[in-house]
Structures are given as structure tokens and as C-alpha cells.
């Protein structure tokens, strides 16, 4: 099967964002991608309730999700040893693309981070990346989540094949400047130099 085909039919998506209009837009995009079952949550409590009531396969979560933020929620999900959701794919949506936030999302156990406002192609590419490049998880005393150290082989459809892929991510200044999506991808795929 060509790798540019995603079959989202029957998979249960949960969009967690306090902005209902954003959720509606996100729903529309996912339905266009073929998703048929999409749930929404406005708070972390809603997320936890939905995770109990439904069988969720993929979580898209705003980094500012009330009350304590999507990164805290991600960390809690990854830390729930007995939970069936401990390894659920989590995509963090954030308008704060400073390096510290992206690092924090990665360290919380996010599979991928997408910058807001999202573009249709950006969302598709990152879903495809999570789908076709599943990562093993690392279970360590201070971290449970996708292996943060792996060699990238290139994104589906060539996305991510750029010069900066080969740069040491340490070159990204810790200045708190906003980052582009390509740089975010680089940071999540940290050890490409290794």
C-alpha cells in the first residue's frame, strides 16, 4: 500500500481543546482525512472521562488545555502504569513554539507537536509520520514515552528532507524565540546526528 494512504475509518480520535471553534475546524479536517469517530473535550477532566467511556485511539491535545495544560495531562497518561492508554499516540497542538515548550512536550511523552494555527498539510504529514514511523517506548525511572533518540529516515512524502535535518539541534538557540514546524520536528527527532 502506498504510504501516502491513511485509513482512519473507525478509529476513535479525541480532540482536547478549550476553543470549541478550533475543535470544529479540526473535526472537519480529520473527517476529510477519512476519520469517522471524533470526540471533543474542553478540559483535562473531560479527557479523562472520555477515555473511560470510549475507546480512544488517538489524542490531539492543546498544550494550554485547562486546568493544568496538555503537557501535564500527557505526563499523567504516560505515568499511569495500569492504564490501557499509557501508549496512546498523543499529538500536542501548541501556539507556543518556543524551544522550552517543545522540549517539555517531548519530555512529557508526546509523539509529535504541531504548531497552531495548523495547516491541513501539516496535520496530515504529522499524522502520517506517527502512523508509519511508530517508535518504541522507553521505560525509565524518570520517563515513559516514545524513544526520543532515534535516527530519522525522512517523513512520508519527503517532508522533513531538508538541510537542517542534518544540523545539530543544539544549534537552535535557547533564546525562547518561536520555532517553525520544521524546527519543531527536528527537536522531537533529537538524536539524528547519532
Amino acid at each position, binding site marked *: 500500500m502506498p504510504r501516502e494512504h*491513511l485509513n482512519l475509518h473507525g478509529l476513535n480520535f479525541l480532540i482536547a481543546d478549550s476553543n470549541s471553534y*478550533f475543535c470544529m*475546524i479540526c473535526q472537519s479536517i480529520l473527517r*476529510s482525512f477519512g476519520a469517522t469517530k471524533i470526540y471533543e473535550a474542553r478540559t483535562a477532566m473531560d479527557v479523562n472521562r472520555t477515555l473511560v467511556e470510549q475507546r480512544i485511539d488517538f489524542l490531539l491535545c492543546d498544550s494550554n488545555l485547562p486546568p493544568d495544560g496538555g503537557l501535564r495531562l500527557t505526563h499523567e497518561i504516560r505515568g499511569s502504569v495500569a492504564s490501557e492508554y499509557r501508549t496512546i499516540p498523543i499529538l500536542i497542538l501548541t*501556539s507556543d513554539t518556543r524551544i522550552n515548550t517543545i522540549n517539555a512536550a517531548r519530555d512529557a511523552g508526546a509523539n509529535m507537536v504541531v504548531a497552531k*494555527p495548523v495547516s*491541513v498539510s501539516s496535520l496530515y504529514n504529522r499524522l502520517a509520520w506517527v502512523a*508509519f514511523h511508530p517508535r518504541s*517506548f522507553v521505560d525509565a525511572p524518570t520517563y515513559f514515552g516514545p524513544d526520543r533518540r532515534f535516527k530519522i529516515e525522512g517523513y512520508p512524502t519527503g517532508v522533513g528532507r531538508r538541510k537542517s535535518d542534518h544540523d545539530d539541534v543544539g544549534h537552535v538557540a535557547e533564546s525562547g524565540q518561536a520555532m517553525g514546524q520544521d524546527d519543531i520536528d527536528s527537536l522531537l527527532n533529537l538524536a539524528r546526528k547519532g
Partner: protein
Amino acid sequence: MPNAPGGDGTVVPVSTRFHSLVRRPGGVSREQAIQSAEAHLGTMQPQFADWLDRELELLISAIPAGQTEATSDDPWLAAAHVHCRAMRDVGATMGFELLTFAANNLCDIIEIVQAGVDCPFDAIESQINALLLARKEVARALLTGARRG
């Protein structure tokens, strides 16, 4: 391939229902998915204009008129931030980069005031004007049937 973990970590292979089902035959091609999503977003434009009007109204009413000083914990800052963020997060997705740009500037201003900087009311007013200009761009795009950017 994953690298071997260092320290005390253990690598755990993970297989989720998502990863099993997303690779089934069939589905939607990338090109088809993106075209379809763009078309769907295009049909949402009139509704988007209504939503934007409401958000702008709520934002403007949240900012106190005639005030010359603000403290970092003034409740109106948080209220304004909610509406400002909402516009920032969807503007460019709907094809209106100016809306996101102005909303992002206003979010930055509100955040620095919340961090303790003196409130630059003139800068806030400028960004509100930019948002109103962006609203006109939305209206113009609707009138001319312009495609999303």
C-alpha cells in the same frame, strides 16, 4: 530504528490499535485528503465570519474603555486573552494570516502585561484596529468568493 537507551531505561516495543488499523488497505490518499479538507474549510467561511464577529465583540468589550493603567492580575486581561488566543489559533487555518498575526501580537502584549510590564494601551488599540482590518479582509474574501489562502 531506535537507538539503545542509556542509563536505566528499557526499550518497550509498542503496538497500538491506531498503528494496526491506520495501515489497512483503502483509506484516503494524501492528495485527496488535503483537497477535501481545504474544500470543507472553504464551505465554513460564512460561519467563520459570524464566529469572528462574536469573538471580536467579546474581545473589545473585555478591554476597559478609557483606562490608562492596568495591573498584572486584572481579570480583563485573562478574558481578553481567551478571545485573542481563539482568533490567533484559527485565523491562518481559515486562510487569514493577518488575523493570526494581529491576534498573536495582542496575545504577546497581554502576556507581558500579565508578567508585570506597564500596560501599553495604545499598542492594544493598534492591534484591535489591525484585527478589525483583518475582519474586513474576511468580509471581502466572502464577497468576492475568494479561495482560502
